[in-house]
């Protein structure tokens, strides 16, 4: 990757290695002197925090795998053995269990940051799309991981979610049998979920590498959303942002370990401490909290879509729900192409800013709906919020493209930062 003459290192060992494989030159270029906008706020910590959580999950996951028994007869007991008998097993498992939640917290904030400051816009479209791909892979990994302890929620969550594929016309049932490796969620299902749960994090690492690579081609966005115009607008990544990231990581880890040590089961569901039983369904099946908004969208489609007042149905309710759920993530994927407004940062887009806060509120309400039984007024509320979720992408954003005034932007980052008036506030 290095081009042009290489700068020599004083240390002879480093110099010996670097002249044969310029890895120190690469690290210095990408993480040492890398020019980074000088006006980052704390929202810019969450990429690094997510990276720390990914590493945490891989380390705790590999150590758990050394004690886990992949069979329907042994899985639940082996997890309880990890909790009671394996040295520090309780700590490693609680770190892994809560680590999933905190990984998602970091990533949700990271996604919000991208949406608020327009980080998905040109020239960072591909960078954003790789990020959505990472999010999808995380969801698949987390879903399969939740099945492994083989408790009641594991079993019934897996049953409900794999059954979604039966909604696909014609081949649905064959696909579900294919996914299960049998005629219900059973030993073959558990074994393949474990294999894939072990594999996918490394696929995530690969996509994260591409994500960071793309980031280092375009450079970071910043809270003003204006381009870097010269060296006066940037700071070297080290020590300025290595220190700031480190501070943010430590604050985040404090909250994380507070959960691990003092309320390790607060984010889980007690039913998952009951061994899986294919003959008894829990009264109320809920996914992990980070899936709740999407689960609410899935359940919001309770009606068939077809020609009114006839029996002709194009899309059955079940398929409609599945399409809406995947569609909600597809919206994120195509966001860079939906939003063509010339201004990136919501700081200078009051209309978009209000709509985005509305969108966050709708997303949170959907999360609450997803945690409730699908009955009573939760059903119409989910339907309304699902409608608003999609309206943000296909109504509000195209409307803003045409109508939202194009505000005057500060001339450069350093001028905005160095003037005493808070330019960004208005």
């Amino acid at each position: 990757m290095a081009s042009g003459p290489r700068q020599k290192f004083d240390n002879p060992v480093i110099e010996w290695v670097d002249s044969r494989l310029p890895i120190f030159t690469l690290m210095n270029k990408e993480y040492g002197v890398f020019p980074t906008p000088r006006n980052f706020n704390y929202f810019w910590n969450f990429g690094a925090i997510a990276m720390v959580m990914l590493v945490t999950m891989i380390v705790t996951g590999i150590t758990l795998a050394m004690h886990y028994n992949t069979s329907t007869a042994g899985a639940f007991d082996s997890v309880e053995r990890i909790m009671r008998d394996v040295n520090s097993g309780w700590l490693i498992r609680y770190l892994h269990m809560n680590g999933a939640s905190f990984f998602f917290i970091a990533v949700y904030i990271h996604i919000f940051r991208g949406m608020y400051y327009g980080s998905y816009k040109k020239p960072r479209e591909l960078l954003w799309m790789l990020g959505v791909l990472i999010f999808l892979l995380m969801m698949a990994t987390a879903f399969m991981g939740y099945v492994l302890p083989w408790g009641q929620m594991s079993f019934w969550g897996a049953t409900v979610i794999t059954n979604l594929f039966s909604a696909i016309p014609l081949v649905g049932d064959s696909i579900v049998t294919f996914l299960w490796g049998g005629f219900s969620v059973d030993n073959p299902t558990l074994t393949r979920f474990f294999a894939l749960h072990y594999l996918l994090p490394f696929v995530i690492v690969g996509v994260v590498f591409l994500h960071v690579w793309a980031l280092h081609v375009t450079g970071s966005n910043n809270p003003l959303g204006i381009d870097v115009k010269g060296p006066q607008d940037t700071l070297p990544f080290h020590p300025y942002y290595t220190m700031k990231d480190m501070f943010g990581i430590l604050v985040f880890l404090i909250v994380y370990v507070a959960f691990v040590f003092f309320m390790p089961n607060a984010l889980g569901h007690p039913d998952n401490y009951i061994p899986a039983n294919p003959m008894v369904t829990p009264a109320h099946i809920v996914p992990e909290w980070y899936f709740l908004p999407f689960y609410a969208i899935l359940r919001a489609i309770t009606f068939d879509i077809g020609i009114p007042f006839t029996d002709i149905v194009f899309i059955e309710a079940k398929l409609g729900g599945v399409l809406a759920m995947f569609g909600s993530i597809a919206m994120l994927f195509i966001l860079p192409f939906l939003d063509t407004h010339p201004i990136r940062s919501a700081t200078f887009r009051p209309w978009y800013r209000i709509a985005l806060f509305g969108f966050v509120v709708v997303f949170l309400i959907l999360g609450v709906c997803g945690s409730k039984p699908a009955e009573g007024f939760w059903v119409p509320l989910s339907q309304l919020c699902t409608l608003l979720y999609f309206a943000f992408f296909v109504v509000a954003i195209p409307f803003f493209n045409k109508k939202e005034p194009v505000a005057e932007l500060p001339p450069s980052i350093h001028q905005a930062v160095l003037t005493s008036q808070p330019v960004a506030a208005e």
Partner: protein
Amino acid sequence: MTADNAHSPSEDGSTRRDFLYLTAAAFGAVGAGSVAWPFINQMNPAADTLAMSTTEVDLGPIEVGQSITVMWRGKPVFIRHRTPEEIAEAEAVDVSSLRDKETDKQRAEKPAWLVTVGVCTHLGCVPLGQKTGDAKGEYGGWFCPCHGSHYDTSGRIRKGPAPKNLAVPPYTFTTDTTIKIG
């Protein structure tokens, strides 16, 4: 054949080299597909899983009005020895008023015995109604507590979100009082 021949275009502008490219690519694609297939197909049910896919049930000990649950392919199967009232109720329903239009005759080979897969057609929960104390729903059959689907004495969906009737598994009477499911 000379090197010139290989590169000189024929009347339609294609060369022998183009043909070689296409056949090489086609062979490569077929080869990759043949190698990929075993790695995809291994996910489908294995021979031992398929071998476990039939279950024999002795109906002898089941009294009139009693229900039992057996396992078939990892799923619960409900077998109900229906009372004459339950049969009459199931047969009296106006089929055109149903969501999933099936007559009781289509669902029960012998009216006394109703055999259904005990999995709600909504999202796969196991409905209540097998035990004496269970809620049986408004139509005297089964009731799914997950999202409130009511099934009648023929296992047909009558109320709630489920789209279909409880599935009837393939089964045959091997004797008067024994069935083989699957």
